[in-house]
């Protein structure tokens, strides 16, 4: 009896909530598009960080240069 009920519930759950191949493909396509957006956002972040760093670098370099000039190596 339990086995009958188990089979019935299994069938009912698969009918109601199971993903067909088409649905699974749709899930994957939407996920792949999202992964791409995330990767682009990450690339944008990295580029922005590089730009920020490259803006900082000349100032750091010039202050290092100035300090070397005021304390020239012997």
């Amino acid at each position, binding site marked *: 009896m339990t086995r009958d009920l188990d089979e*019935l519930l*299994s069938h009912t*759950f698969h009918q109601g909530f199971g*993903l067909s191949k088409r649905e699974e493909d749709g899930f*994957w396509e939407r*996920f*792949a598009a999202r992964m791409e957006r995330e990767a682009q956002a990450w690339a944008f972040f990295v580029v922005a960080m590089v730009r920020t760093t490259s803006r900082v670098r000349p100032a750091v370099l010039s202050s290092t240069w100035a300090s070397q000039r005021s304390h020239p190596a012997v």
Partner: protein
Amino acid sequence: MSDFESFYRDHVQLVYALALSRSGDAWQAEDLTQETFLRAWQHFGALVEADPTARRAWLARTLRNLVIDTWRHRSLVSLEPLGDAEPAPAPDERAELRIDLTHALAGLDDTSREIVMLRYLEDLNSREIGEIMGLPEGTVRRRLAESRRVLADRLPQWAPEGAAR
């Protein structure tokens, strides 16, 4: 097909089933599913090294944490009996079945709902469910027996004529 796509397709039904058991709403369940796989993608290097049970346990745990975060941040409504708030008019048979299943699952607590989804949608046995959820096998069996009774009471309309209860 990439390794990650294979991983995704192997596990999407499991994660979606768990998400449905938590949210009860198909759109929200897909969102939770995709968010879980996004985390998996970020940790894929470690996940491919893990054994199949550990992978499934990781996905289940990540989904659970996401649901908790969503409740905290978006005031996600927990699965409740549908009452008068019925969705679209004249739904097809599958939509009707989903509504009835969601209503039936609302009679169970979160843990039992998860157990039921893993049993009847993923076709896992009590030992496998216990490993994924971190529960003793006996606890899974007991909860399954209780849940079966609740579901049988709440889903009689989907039983074929003369089916044993």
